[in-house]
């Protein structure tokens, strides 16, 4: 398999291109999908290649369009429905949840809804409360949906292709701060099984479960943890629903310690679900109480001096892990480092290339 380095955004573009070439029932629709900016580069060039009948813009009617997409899918189309932000998608929930997730079941398995919905989690550059939410915990709650959160360019391409080929409604959630990261991606078409987590790094002292951008942050924590001889096993979920419980349980049975990271509010978030299921199934293997590191249960401010204190950063992950392992003094060092960073500079961009506006 010939691999080369491309960005996460480009890998989504490539996945879309290749699956559209392979299957003529696939069409792409979303506000701005033919735009010059191509939804952060993820849809660039596709309308030129496939034409207006397969790559479409749409009226600003998120709810009707969700139902329309479902209506086309029950008759065999395989639409990919994109949104520039997850926050815009709330309007479409009635159609997705009352119709999309239930249509196959409530009509006695006589029809299916093979749709993919792409959502983008915003962050940074003053996105504010209405441009930075994620819906994965909310949507994971409804039976009938599948929810994916790739953390790498390789996973993004493989999971998007798997999502389109799946006969069910799949929500594919991208993080804005992952679009520019690069990774090795095979040139040809391939898919990754849905519902199988990826062990980013093996370890024996603690299991860190993460997804999406948090998996990247967990990865960055490794070098600091190594300095303290902490061997962390990092699990990147890839799929929120179906959840790969086997991989999580096997890991916790080995390490006895669990830290769950999540790009979402704490209360009723997916991190709580993971901890609950681990406690139900691996209680005797736990050496200490499981923990989670998530957003606080409040809203995301716009000004950087405030939003700095909203998002957990690498130093917070390191501090939490060290603390979980009883290394309180070392944890405090990282807590202080974290605080210093948060009070002194804007942490509202993923890297220096990001100059806004969204």
């Amino acid at each position, binding site marked *: 398999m010939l691999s080369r380095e491309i960005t996460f955004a480009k890998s989504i573009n490539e996945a879309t291109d290749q699956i559209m070439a392979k299957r003529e029932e696939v*069409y792409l629709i979303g506000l701005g999908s033919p735009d010059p900016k191509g939804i952060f580069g993820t849809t660039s060039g596709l309308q030129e290649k496939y034409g207006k*009948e397969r790559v479409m813009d*749409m*009226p600003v*009617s998120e*709810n*009707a*369009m*969700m*139902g*329309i*997409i*479902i*209506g*086309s*899918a*029950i*008759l*065999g*189309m395989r639409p990919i429905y994109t949104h520039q932000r997850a926050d815009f998608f709330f309007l479409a929930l*009635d*159609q997705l949840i*009352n*119709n999309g997730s239930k*249509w*196959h*079941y*409530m*009509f*006695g*398995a*006589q*029809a*299916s*809804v*093979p749709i993919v919905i792409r959502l983008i989690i915003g962050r940074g550059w003053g996105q504010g409360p209405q441009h930075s939410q994620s819906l994965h915990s909310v949507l994971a709650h409804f*039976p*009938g949906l*599948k929810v994916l959160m790739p953390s790498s360019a390789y996973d993004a391409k493989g999971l998007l292709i798997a999502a389109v080929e799946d*006969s*069910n409604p799949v929500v594919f959630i991208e993080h804005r701060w992952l679009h520019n990261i690069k990774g090795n991606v095979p040139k040809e078409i391939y898919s990754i099984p849905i519902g199988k987590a990826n062990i980013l790094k093996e370890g024996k002292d603690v299991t860190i479960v993460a997804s999406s951008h948090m998996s990247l942050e967990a990865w960055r924590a490794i070098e600091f943890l190594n300095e303290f001889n902490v061997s962390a096993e990092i699990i990147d979920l890839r799929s929120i629903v179906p959840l790969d419980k086997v991989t999580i349980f096997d890991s916790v049975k080995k390490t006895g310690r669990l830290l769950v990271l999540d790009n979402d509010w704490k209360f009723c978030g997916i991190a709580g679900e993971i901890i609950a299921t681990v406690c139900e199934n691996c209680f005797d293997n736990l050496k200490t109480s499981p923990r989670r590191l998530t957003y606080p249960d409040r809203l995301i401010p716009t000004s950087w001096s405030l939003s700095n204190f909203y998002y957990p950063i690498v130093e917070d992950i390191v501090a939490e892990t060290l603390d979980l392992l009883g290394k309180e003094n070392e944890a405090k060092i990282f807590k202080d480092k974290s605080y210093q960073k948060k009070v002194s500079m804007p942490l509202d961009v993923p890297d220096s290339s990001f100059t806004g506006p969204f």
Partner: protein
Amino acid sequence: MSGKMDQKTRLNLFNTLLRIRLTEQRIAKNYSQQKMRCPVHLSVGQEAVAVGVCSQLLDSDYLISTHRAHAHFLAKGGDLKSLISEICGKSSGCSRGRGGSMHLIDLNKGILGTTPIVGGSMPIAVGAAFKVALKNENRLVVLFFGEGSTEEGVWAECLNFASLKKLPILFICENNFFSVYSPLEVRQSQERDRVKIAEAHGLFSKKENGNDLEKVVELAKAGIDHIKQGLGPVYLEFDTYRHLEHCGPNEDDHLNYRDPEITNFWKNNCPLNIYQKKLLNLNLLNSSLIEEMKDKINKELDEAFDSVDRESMPVFKEAEEEIYAK
């Protein structure tokens, strides 16, 4: 126009009306046996819209409707036995016992699905029409809904998209003046003209008395012609009236939320009364022919209900496997 309809067609139409009426009345009558354990929203009094519109459709045309869909289901040719079985929760029901009266399907007759969230099934129908248009299929899509659905934002969104893409879809509104107990006057301003709203979106848009079957047929034909000429979607609104309560087998006029004079007018001028009178006057019908038709339908209903009793309930473990399609 109505003079062009031949005897056979007229008798068929009458028979279809009668069959729906007797089926709904039988469901109402048997409901207290507690074998039909789901909400039923009966179409008694509203049959002509379903029969008139569906008489102009083929099996290959698609139909989508709402919670009050029994008439649409039967008028489109949906299987009667599978309807009764579904309402009784049997695995031989059209939705294998998973949907009940509010979620009907019969793909052999183009009935794609019916759902009870007000306005919820509208964009599904538009989506079906979208697929038909994308694939250049020679088909129509018909969507039935009540006037309450037009208060949902999604109606305007659907009109806009259907018009933008010139979709082959008939939006059929049955205005029965009530949304459960809420009269039209508390829900829509008197100035609100639904026909004009649809027209303002670019649709061919007309209104008619929904209890006069041949008028429904005429207007449906005109609407379908419009679509077949590639001129885009159509909105047809029909005034009608439900005889029974919003949900359930009983009359509820004693609750006095509807003006008794108006109710009596509509009941006396129900689709069956009007058409029966017309065909009697034309000597196409007589009382013995009507009795013959009723006997045949009642026998069909007897058999359907008897056989349903012998059918099995769905087994619990099956249900676990069908959340996801393979």
